[in-house]
């Protein structure tokens, strides 16, 4: 126990005397949290609209202004021919081309049926899908208005109609920040934990100071604990800073309790630090440690469900996502912050991550050699 106390003293001194590490711990989270959510805005809006209006009728005008007034679309191009509209798509000036055919109004009123063409630049599939969805919704609304103009709707439906009522729980205003900020917080804590822990031991290897430690009677687990605890504390501190930033800048207050977040984070950080320690037992140079951690961190973050939902992944990727501590924390922190889930709700994830923590740390202790 006394050995551990001395070791911890040494580690903390080392950290607090290295201004670079302190800067990374305190400034990086703030900058990332402020910058990333503004940049990482996946909300589909500002869809550039190119309109080809062959009809030039009052109806086509009404439809166009209805679309631009919706807030989703910006009218950036008003062409008179199809090739010109296609050129706008090629130059990325238009995302969706709406073609209103000639005699649109007349067909609609006289023949009871008219057509509208929607063409989307589908290189970005999400934008194309949601964009045409919004457009179809607006056209549907317009359709209803037209119908109501022409016929007095009977109070009693003539035909069976199912009314679909949708409700968006927890985030009725569809605020994207509420979704992305907690996720970015997780990435942040993960990076601080794993990168710094991995670099720390490798630095001792590179500098040769690890020899001095290896010749002491200290046990392997004591050495690794001495490395683990300081970064565990730092990880929790950066999480606290991140939560403050989330509140001050984005006004995000967890619906659930801070206690639950920190309770989970304590176990989670053990798992992440275990991975960092494991990497450091494999790498010989800081360059290798960075590249290895970068490589795995990238896979972990991309497959965490932070940006794309885990359920959309193929089965093999879902297995990887399950074996990925980051994805569990992303799920949990969102559940706590947005939905107010309590300890009981997150127990399955908690035990899974606890399992990872034991596994990776045991592996790190086993793989660490005191002999050169």
């Amino acid at each position: 126990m006394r050995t551990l106390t001395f070791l911890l003293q040494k580690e903390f001194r080392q950290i607090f005397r290295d201004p670079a590490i302190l800067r990374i711990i305190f400034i990086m989270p703030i900058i990332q949290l402020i910058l990333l959510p503004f940049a990482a805005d996946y909300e589909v809006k500002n869809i550039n609209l190119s309109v080809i209006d062959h009809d030039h009728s009052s109806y086509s005008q009404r439809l166009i202004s209805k679309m631009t007034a919706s807030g989703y679309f910006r009218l950036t191009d008003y062409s008179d021919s199809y090739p010109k509209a296609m050129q706008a798509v090629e130059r990325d000036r238009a995302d969706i081309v709406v073609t209103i055919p000639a005699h649109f109004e007349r067909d609609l009123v006289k023949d009871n049926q008219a057509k509208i063409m929607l063409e989307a630049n589908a290189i970005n599939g999400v934008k194309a899908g949601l964009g045409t969805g919004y457009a179809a919704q607006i056209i549907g609304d317009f359709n209803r208005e037209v119908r109501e103009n022409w016929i007095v709707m009977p109070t009693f439906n003539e035909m069976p109609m199912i009314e679909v009522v949708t409700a968006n729980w927890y985030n009725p205003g569809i605020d994207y920040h509420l979704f992305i900020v907690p996720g970015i917080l997780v990435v942040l804590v993960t990076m601080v934990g794993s990168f710094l822990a991995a670099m720390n031991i490798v630095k001792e290897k590179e500098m040769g100071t690890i020899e001095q430690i290896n010749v002491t009677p200290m046990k392997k687990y004591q050495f690794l604990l001495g490395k683990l605890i300081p970064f565990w504390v730092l990880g929790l501190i950066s999480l606290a800073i991140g939560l403050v930033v989330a509140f001050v800048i984005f006004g995000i207050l967890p619906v659930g309790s801070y206690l639950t977040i920190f309770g989970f984070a304590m176990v989670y950080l053990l798992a992440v630090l275990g991975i960092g320690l494991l990497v450091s037992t494999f790498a010989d140079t800081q360059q290798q440690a960075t590249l290895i951690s970068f490589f795995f961190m990238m896979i972990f973050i991309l497959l965490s469900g932070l940006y794309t939902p885990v359920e959309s992944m193929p089965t093999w990727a879902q297995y990887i996502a399950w074996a990925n501590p980051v994805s569990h924390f992303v799920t949990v922190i969102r559940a706590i912050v947005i939905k107010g889930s309590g300890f009981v709700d997150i127990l399955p994830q908690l035990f899974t991550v606890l399992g990872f923590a034991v596994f990776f740390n045991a592996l790190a202790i086993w793989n660490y050699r005191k002999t050169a």
Partner: protein
Amino acid sequence: MRQFIAFVKKEFYHILRDRRTLLFMFGLPVVQILLFGFALSNEIKNAGIAILDHSKDDATQLLIDRMDASRYFTIVRNLHSDTEIEDVFRKGQAKMVIVFPPNFQDELLHTNAAQVQLVADATDTNTAITISNYASAIIRDYQDELLDNRQLPYAIKIETRMLYNPQLKSAFNFVPGVMAMVLMLLSALLTSVAIVREKEMGTMEILLVSPMKPLLVVLTKAIPYLFFSFINVIIILLLSVFVLGMPINGSLILLLLECLLFILTSLSLGLLISSATNSQQVAMFISLVGLMMPTIIFSGFMFPIENMPIPLQIISNVIPAKWFYIIVKSVMIKGLGIGAIWKETLILVGMTVFLMGISVARFKVRLE
């Protein structure tokens, strides 16, 4: 010239003998392409939904079966009371609950008006909207069948066509971005670290006192990375065409030339970083934070630039990856020629010349 070749050879040996870095160099692009191509998509598949059926009649059963049969949804739980909705969401078991009020079929058949409630967990906003849209479409199909194809008056029919990417594969968006990311990482990060390592180890001094021109010494360091980066371009293109089924609609030669140009831009950035620093740590940090992050954020493949606040949009213009991303998208997917991308190409050429100029000017023959 013989000297030059000898130096280049030495650099190749350096790289080929460092197994772990080599693995990273070729493993990274392959893993990234496969991840982005197969694993990452926003497409909704088998989203878990729960059913709260107060009615339990033929009509609701039919609708429930249709939901379960569609590839978008899997029914994970049947609820019995409203209070359970909260529980399902909090445990994260389902993304949406479909609520049928009592007497659904009776009302539908007798009063011709029935109601269905779609309660979505809007934690993930885009997924929530998409799921509600899909479920509404399934319900609307059912309703249309009930109408027995009777034509509604004053109907506007919408025809939708998806250009370039009819199956809405996410790879189309990601592959050009991954290319920018990988090339930036290899050319800028590895080159700068390789040069700075010689400084750190003290071997730079030996190189500088050799009869080689100092500037050539640095150039020989860049050539192997140019070579390996180009191989990576070919690997990425092969994978995207033969594994991901992506087209190369434009001219392949133009595409390769543009890639070469971007590699040169990245290399000159790497040279600039190496001339500014003396430690591997700092070089690595600048590369990762100063180059990788902006490349990921501002190239437009992960995050839509048009949604960013204006200051960020302005910053995005100085990021080479943004222009490269536009070029690759235009040539590879849209099949456009140089006529459409000469502006972007010129910008990249300008950046390369500028960066090269600075790093040559800053290059020091003497060690401090």
